[in-house]
């Protein structure tokens, strides 16, 4: 960009606003925001939850419970049941009964009406659900309130409308449900992942046994209550809480006909092996290490915003996070300077504060993983840049971080960190960007930033990724199919394509 020479551009009277030192923005304490806590007092939480099986909350057969904790404060929120193989079997039986006796016999439009009811009830309880989600998982209230919960509601509405229209989605086929589906979901978007799984499954006529992640069971329990309030036929939705063993019991249960899993690639491979030879249908939505590619002709300020959204949204706990920045070398300096300034205005802290941008890391375990990988980045020679924001003394927090001088061979360029940590690499030409972007075992998502339309279509067509965002990032909609290539998994969720996993076609 052209720079204006002092002696040509300014006359004496204009010097008033000239800075003496090197230009730098100061984001300090002029006009600080006061705490703006979201109120908790309207939230109804039990101290202990049973398993939701056959339309009721029941005690676990082992009598064992475990705690779920608020990662921002380390306080215990509630106890949830630990389901063993016998509990899972009871859930599957309840699901089978419901399927055979009731759900598969309902007219599709009537099924749809139940799903509409669930959507409506979730809408009515939006704020309470958002607060519980934030307390249980650590994400900022402004995200659970403005992104997670609205999308949850939208997913149920969207799929309710498909129940009586499946013949149009699959013309020239006879469409039928599969039966009992086992679903295992992660802790990063607890209620949303439950919606992504349950809504299409039951709209298509299946019944489900779902296990939420062990660190984030509470919104699933709230969803169970909603199913009760909607008078959903008992056993259509069953929710069993527990950890790895509970999940294994679901995967291995002989009469579960379809498994849907969202989580790490490592566990996805375990599940894929476990279902081999069983005839079970399987969809997997696994990890990612997405490239966010910024070309020199990108709208730069919005591209920087796209970097922030790509990696610091939900503390980077996003499978499709833009965790690798590929920036064209000619604009790298200016992009990184803007990125540094932008990070200085990210507010880290109490997730229930409406002004918090970066919340808590979901668990101590995850925090340790992030620290380990960040240490490897430093050790392998990349240059670390971190926000100097104050870190609360309690709770699990990690400051927004980015590494420069990263090469493809660094661990931080290949392994999924699942935290607010960005790895920055440069490229010179479009071909080089494409090559670097695709040169990983993952393939979930990618971002492309350029003002040139034809370049968008060319680059996006070359990305080996299931979701490609052009001039935006982390956008989701129930009507838009989501899922990965390669080791990011197979199958799609959302849209017409997402229905495929939940029907039998003949």
């Amino acid at each position, binding site marked *: 960009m052209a720079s*204006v020479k002092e002696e040509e551009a300014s006359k004496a*009277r*204009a010097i008033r*606003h000239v800075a003496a030192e090197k230009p730098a923005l100061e984001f300090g304490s002029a*006009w600080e*925001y006061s705490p*703006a806590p979201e109120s908790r007092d309207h939230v109804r939480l039990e101290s202990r939850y049973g398993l939701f099986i056959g339309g009721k909350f029941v005690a676990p057969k082992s009598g064992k419970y475990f705690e779920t904790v608020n990662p921002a404060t380390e306080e215990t929120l509630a106890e949830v049941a630990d389901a063993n193989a016998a509990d899972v079997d009871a859930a599957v039986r309840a699901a089978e009964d419901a399927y055979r006796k009731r759900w598969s016999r309902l007219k599709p439009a009537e099924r749809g009406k139940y799903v509409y009811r669930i959507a409506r009830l979730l809408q009515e309880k939006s704020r309470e659900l958002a607060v519980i989600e934030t307390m249980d998982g650590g994400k900022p209230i402004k995200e659970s309130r403005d992104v997670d919960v609205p999308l949850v509601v939208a997913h149920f509405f969207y799929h309710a409308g498909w129940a009586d229209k499946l013949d149009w989605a699959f013309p020239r086929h006879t469409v039928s449900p599969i039966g009992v589906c086992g679903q295992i979901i992660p802790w990063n978007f607890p209620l949303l992942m439950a919606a992504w799984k349950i809504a299409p499954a039951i709209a298509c006529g299946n019944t489900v046994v779902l296990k939420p992640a062990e660190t984030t069971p509470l919104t699933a329990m709230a969803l169970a209550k909603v199913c009760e309030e909607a008078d959903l036929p008992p056993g259509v939705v069953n929710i069993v809480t527990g950890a790895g063993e509970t999940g294994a019991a679901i995967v291995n249960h002989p009469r579960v006909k379809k498994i849907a899993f969202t989580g790490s690639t490592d566990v996805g491979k375990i599940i894929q092996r476990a279902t081999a030879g069983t005839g079970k249908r399987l969809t997997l939505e696994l990890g990612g290490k997405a490239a966010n590619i910024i070309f020199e002709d990108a709208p*730069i300020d919005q591209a920087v915003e796209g970097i922030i959204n790509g990696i610091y949204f939900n503390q980077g706990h996003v499978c499709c996070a833009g965790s690798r920045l590929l920036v064209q070398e000619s604009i790298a300096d200016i992009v990184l300077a803007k990125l540094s300034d932008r990070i200085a205005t990210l507010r880290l802290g109490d997730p229930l504060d409406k002004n918090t941008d970066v919340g808590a890391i979901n668990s101590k375990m995850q925090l340790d993983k992030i620290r380990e990988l960040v240490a490897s980045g430093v050790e392998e020679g990349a240059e670390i840049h971190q926000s100097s924001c104050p870190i609360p003394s309690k709770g699990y927090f990690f400051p927004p971080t980015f590494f420069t001088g990263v090469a493809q061979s660094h661990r931080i360029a290949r392994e999924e960190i699942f935290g607010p940590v960005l790895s920055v690499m440069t490229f010179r030409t479009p071909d080089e960007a494409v090559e670097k972007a695709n040169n990983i075992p993952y393939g979930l998502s990618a971002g492309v930033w350029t003002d040139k339309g034809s370049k968008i279509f060319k680059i996006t067509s070359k990305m080996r990724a299931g979701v490609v965002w052009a001039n935006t990032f982390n956008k989701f909609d129930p009507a838009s199919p989501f899922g990965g290539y390669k080791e990011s998994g197979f199958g799609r969720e959302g849209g017409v394509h997402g229905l495929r996993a939940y029907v039998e076609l003949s």
Partner: protein
Amino acid sequence: MSSLPLPFEAERVPRVDAVGIEERAAALGKRSIKKAAKVAGIKLAISMLDLTTLEGKDSEGKVRQLCRKAIRPQPGDPSVPHVAAVCVYPNLVAIAKDALAGSGVKVASVASGFPAGLVPLSAKLDDTRLAVEAGADEIDMVIDRGAFLSGDYEKVASEIVAIKDACGDAHLKVILETGELETYDNVRKASRLAMTYGADFIKTSTGKINPAATPGVVLVMLEAIRDFYFETGRRIGMKPAGGIKTSKQALHLLVLVKETLGDAWLTPDLFRIGASTVTNDLLMQLTKEASGRYQSEDYFTKD
């Protein structure tokens, strides 16, 4: 055609993605400003107001009453600061100057054939000089939008240079009239042009048409100011004007400034709000914060 100190490179102005800028501007509107921050923000906003009257029926009586409000917005409450300036047509400058003498409130005058700006340069320079001689501390000029939209950047730029010269010691605000420029790319380009050729402040609108100071437009201009600062070391001020009616909007503007440009711009020297009716909403919100009660317009003066 006058020769400019340096040519304007329109093609090197960064592009703006409309969806992205609006999302960011809206996201900043979700900041929750409460309690002490709200009180401080409202007082800051009041101190940044350019109370404006620009009607054909403006008279001495109207202007004097507005100036009283400018000096003491809340009767009997000296803790509420005076506003930054009063903005009037050139014929009313002397009256405003007299009414505001010794108060610290500045006198701003529109000029350059405001609001359309479609008169010869000589007429624009005449009314600028008239206003300055009558005592205006600040001049709010309009750019020639017809020339800009037909690509005649030299004409637009040379007028700014000439009017800046005619301003003398008065500071110059350049009004882009963003509602007529329509696209964010144009707003970004016009911002850069205005700053390059002498603007002390860039201003969104005349207030005579809609849309005026939308959050997206304000953010584009703040980003243009940011880039200009990094290239030249010069801090240019910004003034949104038109359509700002509520405290919520005013606080949103302050958030946009704070999180785009930082602390240095949170001062009336570098940020102004061109409005009038918003004053009472600011006062009502301030009173509500202090008393805990929602307020009625009956208790706040309309001058």
